[in-house]
């Protein structure tokens, strides 16, 4: 049996994905009640799995191994699901397209030289945003497959939808800002989460 019960796993998982997270954010991303998140953080801190600095929890070096051990128990069925396996293979391709697209949001090619995108060319920006939205849409079947095994994965389509709505309303910093629930942050967390859930290493 794992030392982490499922609530503690979910809370620690979010802390490890965000590298730094406050209780209200963890509550939103896990769907766990705010009071239960605070109690879980206290237990995790006593076990030496998180360090609380100010109002943020950071994972310790012991967090990843503890999560990996628990994930191999919790996700044994999911790992053996051939349908999910097939969708995960496709994710790698979509992921590299996503990274390239994200870089093209930050930098544009001017005569072979990459310069910062100053976001004055709205036609260019709209094209990149529409490409990003298409890439997010392609995650649909994978996210549905994962949520079929563990309901917490439903948080990803919910967060993507809210963020894309915000972008479409004109708040373009929700594309890549590291301090907002941006598409880039959500995508990155999903990728890390996926690797842990499946017990895989990054290919890079």
């Amino acid at each position, binding site marked *: 049996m794992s030392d982490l019960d499922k609530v503690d796993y979910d809370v620690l998982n979010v802390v490890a994905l*965000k*590298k*730094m997270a406050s209780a209200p954010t963890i509550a939103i991303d896990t769907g766990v009640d705010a009071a239960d998140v605070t109690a879980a953080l206290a237990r995790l801190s006593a076990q030496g799995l998180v*360090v609380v*600095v100010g109002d943020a929890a*950071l*994972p*310790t*070096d012991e*967090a990843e191994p503890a999560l990996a051990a628990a994930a191999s128990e919790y996700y044994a069925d999911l790992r053996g699901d051939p349908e999910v396996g097939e969708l995960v293979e496709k994710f790698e391709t979509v992921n590299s397209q996503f*990274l*390239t697209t*994200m*870089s093209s949001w*930050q*930098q544009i090619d001017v005569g072979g*030289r*990459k*310069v*910062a995108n100053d976001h004055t060319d709205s036609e260019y920006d709209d094209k990149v945003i529409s490409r990003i939205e298409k890439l997010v849409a392609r995650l649909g079947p994978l996210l549905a497959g994962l949520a079929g095994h563990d309901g917490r994965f439903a948080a990803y389509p919910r967060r993507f939808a809210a963020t894309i709505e915000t972008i479409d309303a004109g708040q373009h910093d929700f594309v*890549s*800002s*590291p*301090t907002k629930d941006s598409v*880039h942050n959500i995508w*990155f967390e999903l990728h*890390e989460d996926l690797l842990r859930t499946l017990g895989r290493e*990054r290919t*890079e």
Partner: protein
Amino acid sequence: MADVLAEGYNVFDTSKSPSGTVKYLSSPADVISLIQSGKLQEHILLVRGGTTTFLAPALSMGAIGVITMSGAPESHLGILSREFQTPCVMTAHLTGSDSRYVVGATSDEHFAEIARELDGKKVRLDCTDDEVGRIVADD
């Protein structure tokens, strides 16, 4: 021109040229203790992986410069460093060594040598070139 100790991919062109003592970070615990020490801004951070995501808290807390020993500017860390406008040189190699990073075929000694040579040195990052980021001695 100052002595170029190492060079790698420049993640984005910037006239910012941070200087500080190189601090090799090997784990999340190293990042946490550096943040807690209050001396984050005295250091140029050196990490092994290009996807070393445990650096994210350091970047959001105001790290002044980053050197990685692997990874590409298109990676997550590259995207983050552009967002935070933190100068970043990726897949840096020592100018005084023939050892180079090769995906999937790099010995631990390659990384150990870079850490040994750079850790504790006073350096300045030169990230003005379109392609190459330089780590120069700053004595």
